[in-house]
């Protein structure tokens, strides 16, 4: 693999860039692998990379129904943060954040991780209470998160409207400075390139139609559009499509898939220096390196795989953005798109072994999957390699829905009284 550097770029520039190699080969599947990972998003590709790098397992295929990085990896608003309330979540996301910080260097691929800070706005007393609970919990968990007054929030993000007469006045904000954004496609590509360099096969445009189990009930392999592929272990990391596939192995999941929409504006010169999230008003904004305002919407109300999403939701989101940042009404929306997010009843992921021997699952990330990418991939690889969960993902098991031990961040944010 050619090492990427300013020097290699310069050298290739001199020769008209004709000597660059493919970043990953487009593999034909072999008949058998030690591990098959279904879903070539950041999580799946990352898991393959860590299997190879940290566990020495290189006879691995990552199989995707489309092109790699074409699911939620390439469709999200790239927010990365770890200031979650519960210990379990904080550990998971902070593990990811630690990995994010060195990811470009580790992968030799600039994923443009930018620690611009993520600021979450409090608009009422209830928000303030809830954010304080997060702040204190984060502090004692060693996760950075700090409280800003409205004036400090405005200083951090000048377009913010902190007028006291606003419909939802800003009463303060929680800021995680280590948080930020990254270039989503580059994450998939970087992992793909690094995994391929270690011998992982990346098989694109090859839908997996079923998981096959042997007479003992253990995993035997996967049925695909290009035939059966034998594997001792299968990890499913297929986001919104996971439950349909797991059904074929007889594992029913508490998942529902919802459309999630996002949009970007036309590019403008730097105006928005951080990420701002307002859960109360439903506005999530950042500005990409290219200059586009990147805006996330909430999920639509009905389950769907259509990747379309409705107009009312977008109207509401844009109105919310204009409410919090009134200078943006004359900005123009360039493009909006939809993804499919898989949501569990407690909005926390399921990342663990399953009742089926040799079958592992990583799903249910809802709207929060991108930020977890390196962390989730890393512990998924551990779980698959050792056939036991890493302490970080141990709590994210399927059985919690039976016992009632939910990890419900959203419920903890609760509802207004």
């Amino acid at each position, binding site marked *: 693999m050619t090492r990427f550097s300013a020097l290699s770029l310069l050298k290739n520039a001199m020769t008209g860039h004709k000597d660059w190699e493919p970043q990953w080969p487009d593999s034909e599947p072999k008949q058998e692998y030690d591990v098959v990972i279904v879903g070539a998003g950041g999580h799946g590709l990352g898991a393959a990379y860590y299997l190879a790098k940290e566990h020495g397992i290189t006879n691995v295929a990552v199989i995707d129904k489309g092109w790699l990085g074409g699911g939620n990896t390439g469709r999200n608003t790239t927010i990365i943060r770890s200031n979650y309330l519960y210990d379990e979540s904080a550990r998971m996301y902070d593990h990811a954040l630690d990995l994010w910080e060195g990811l470009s260097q580790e992968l030799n691929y600039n994923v443009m991780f930018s620690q611009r800070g993520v600021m979450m706005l409090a608009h009422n007393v209830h928000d303030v209470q809830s954010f304080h609970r997060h702040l204190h919990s984060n502090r004692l968990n060693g996760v950075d998160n700090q409280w800003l007054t409205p004036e400090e929030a405005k200083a951090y993000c000048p377009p913010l409207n902190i007028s006291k007469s606003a419909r939802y006045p800003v009463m303060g904000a929680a800021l995680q400075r280590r948080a930020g954004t990254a270039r989503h496609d580059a994450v998939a590509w970087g992992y793909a390139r690094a995994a391929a360099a270690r011998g992982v096969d990346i098989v694109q445009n090859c839908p997996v139609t079923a998981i096959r189990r042997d007479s003992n009930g253990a995993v035997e392999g996967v049925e695909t559009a290009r035939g059966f592929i034998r594997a001792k272990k299968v990890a499913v990391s297929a986001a919104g499509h996971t439950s349909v596939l797991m059904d074929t192995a007889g594992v029913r999941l508490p998942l529902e898939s919802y459309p999630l929409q996002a949009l970007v504006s036309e590019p403008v010169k730097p105006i928005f220096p951080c990420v701002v999230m307002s859960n109360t008003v439903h506005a999530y904004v950042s500005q990409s390196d290219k200059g586009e305002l990147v805006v996330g919407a909430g999920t639509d109300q009905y389950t769907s795989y259509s990747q379309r999403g409705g107009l009312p939701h977008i109207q509401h989101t844009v109105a919310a953005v204009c409410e919090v940042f009134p200078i943006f009404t*004359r900005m123009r929306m360039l493009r909006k798109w939809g993804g499919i997010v898989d949501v569990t009843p407690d909005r926390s992921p399921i990342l663990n072994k399953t009742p089926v021997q040799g079958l592992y699952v990583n799903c249910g990330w809802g709207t929060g999957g991108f930020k977890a990418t390196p962390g989730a991939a890393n512990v998924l690889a551990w779980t698959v390699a050792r056939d036991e969960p890493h302490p970080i993902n141990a709590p994210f098991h399927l059985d919690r829905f039976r016992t009632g031990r939910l990890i419900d961040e959203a419920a903890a944010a609760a509802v207004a009284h």
Partner: protein
Amino acid sequence: MTAFRVAESGRVRHDRPVEFQFDGRSYQGLEGDTLASALLANGVHLLGRSFKYHRPRGILTAGSEEPNALVGTRRGPGRYEPNTRATVQEIWDGLQAESQNRYPKLSFDLGAINDRLYMLFSAGFYYKTFMWPRSFWERVYEPLIRRAAGLGKAPQEPDPDHYAERHLHTDILVVGGGPAGLSAARSAAKSGARVVLVDESAEMGGHLLSEPGLVIDGQPAWDWLAGMLEELRELGVRVMSRTTAIGYYHQNFLALCERLSDHLKEAPADLPRERLWQVRAGQVVLAQGALEKPLVFDGNDRPGVMLAGAAQTYLHRYGVRAGDRHVVATSHDSAWHAAFDLSDAGSRVEAIVDTRANPSDALREAARDRGIRVLSGHTVTGTSGRLRVNAVRVNPVHDGSVGPAETLGCDSLLMSGGWTPSLHLFSHTKGTLRWDDESDAFLPDQQAEACHIAGAGRGLWGVEAVLQDGDLRGAEAAEAAGHKPESGAFQVENDRTGSGETHRELPSDRKPGRARAFVDYQNDVTAKDIRLAVREGMKSIEHVKRYTTNGMATDQGKLSNMNGLMIAADAVGKAPPQVGLTTFRPPYTPTTFGAFAGYHRGDHFEVVRKTPIDSWAEENGAVFEPVSQWRRAWYFPRQGEDMEAAVARECLATRKSLGIFDASTLGKIEIAGPDAVEFMNRMYTNPWTKLAPGRCRYGLLLGEDGFIRDDGVIGRLSDDLFHVTTTTGGAARVLTMMEDYLQTEWPDLNVWLTSTTEQWATIALNGPNARRVLEPFVEGQDLSPEAFVHMSVAECRVAGFPARLFRLSFTGELSFEINVPARYGRALWEKLYEAGQQYDVCPYGTETMHVLRAEKGFIIVGQDTDGTVTPDDAGMSWAVGKKKTDFVGMRSLSRPDLVAPGRKQLVGLLTEDGSVRLDEGAQVVADPNQSVPMAMIGHVSSSYHSATLGRSIALALLKDGRNLKGQEVYVPLPSGLHKARVTDTVFYDPEGERLKV
């Protein structure tokens, strides 16, 4: 008259000059001009700089697909807009426009250094570098990249304009007012269907506006157009210009953006700037025509290089010649006609350079007649000129080999790489496209919605064919909408049918690595970038797009997608359809946030619900807090008081004598019917059967998961009638949940639910003097302690108003809640307030209410519970009917984790130092000496300074909390470590003596 204006030509008003400014210089245009046509008339071609290389750029198109000519426009304070397409913006007297993405000025831009270093800035270069040293990415590299990118500047001030919305229902919506759309609208309307016809342009006509030489049904094109529009009006067609169909959603739901004021010099104050129309159409006819593709060759981006069709539009519609000396480079017949028209208008056409070896004889002849040199079988291999093209390098091609170059001097290079159907809206519906080998284009295939594609949108060429097709599609749509179709026939003379061929980048005799042949103009993506991406393994068109950013500029790939695909397909070695086409996404053209927000801005962003007593609170200086959609009086500060002082005073006054509180926001549901009590038993944890009419009880509602969802006091007015109260934020949710169970699980129950939240204004009187004040007002109910015991309810009259009167207490004091019809709420409040003066009645707000209830250990759902708390966790097992066999959530309470030890339980906390008020949300630890991460055992859910007790109090959810009573725990705060003792939740009057008044 300006240098390039053609006298008496075009649809502009030559008698109405318009003054405008570009980059501080004044120019004159004509009414009807766009900014682009007016600048071209003045010989101005340099309008902007490109995104990455800061290359000088001019005007490429004459429509909304323009990638280059983006400017900032200003119409007074707060009305700055970046990235306005000069090809769309109509000029008006006083319009100010400025160029973007350049420093210090447009003609000399320091950023153009990037252009010299272009070899470094190949596709995806940023993924390969800027990684060392690690800290430099955020401090150095990224800020540099960001500063260089971004085109225009964002607006800096709030926008004084307003934006509007309308919903519209119609039988048939026709998108596109060109020949196909016009004939479709007419045939559909003649069948009796209701028809709406929209076009993004300032006037209808589409291509007809650029080809006045046509004769349709014996009339000159523009006369025919005028007649057609008159006929549509008579047929009742709603014709909407300046209206862009931006998105095509489920079940023929389309969004249109109508621009109302940006073209006006002065607009009435109440006129919205834009209006978003949401249309539901029975049938949709898409007649969006086709887009002309550029040719891809080295230097195809210099100012002065323009699409031939655009030049034709400028000439005929605006009466402007795109230059004096043109070279036309084309692979399609259409550009020949542009050349002829310009020649006929007095421009010099140096040559027509056609990539095809054998253009038709008719065209050659027409060129010869005009003295235009024809270079067939040629390629274009370069251009020159710093800020405007001054020469074109062309070479013959024989059997794939490129011959010697010839340089042609010019000031305008017009090009055409053929046309591609505009199918963006069709793509929004997830309609599928098929590749048509003959036309080298994607054409519509399977449709997912009830729509019909007409004219050039499905690959037809020539106005007669398009008119005919539009007519048929219109009739087809009408028939599908249930009307009897009627179609007509058209005869067109001078129709310019034609054909062409499709290219990837044009062949060249120069080193391909050096060629700057642009595919995506705005994003500076060249043909070699696309080939590099493929070389690096990006074999799906989506990868190519994302790696190179081809097609991601503000033209949404309208000009670049097809050329990009042809090149990528060639590089991959597959047919174009195998490499795929990227999805087109809404909006069709960039659309303001304001248009999407519509009315939902400022005061109309979201409703602020106010109680009937809100106005009194406002007049009396209340500070408000938002609680769900409501605003509630938070506290009533007197002169000089801060919140803490006001709340302390309000608390003391209430406990000492009398407080008055507006509780109108509490949700209220009337539950009536023979099965009302059974329904209550099933919904709430408590038993209801034995609750006598006239009495009330605290009710606890769980979710089916066993966690607390809501609570409130519930009064039984008669055997079959309950008055339920809910939390303020829970009102709608609880009613929905009840309806859900009632309608879908227990439809057999004879019971009905009605929301009465807003029927009643609710006033709470609290304090030892509550009865004394209230008693004189009450008729029909004896208020004495014996006759109206704690937890009673009665229907009576208060101050002459019909009332539902509760005796209950959320403060621990003697307390009454009086519900009167909302219209009387304020009047009753005022009467009670006046009568209360003798007891120093004190109006208090939500904060005091919170303190008073916390002193008594009453929970606030959503504050002391968080969706993970069971009745037992909250210490409210007493509220769960022990003998009940089922209620909502009961089964979940016995799940393993809900009965496991170590659950968090609600307890009281008293800090060692009573002057310390713990932060709400503060985390509690058992061992303060551990290192981070610390093991936390719970958190403080409520915390106040209690003026009554003269110290702070807190409620907390602690692991095994009830077992910790009496023990010490620690709260590490940034201000220091605080020791606290775990206590019972009731801090004040634990025996409830104060209720016995």
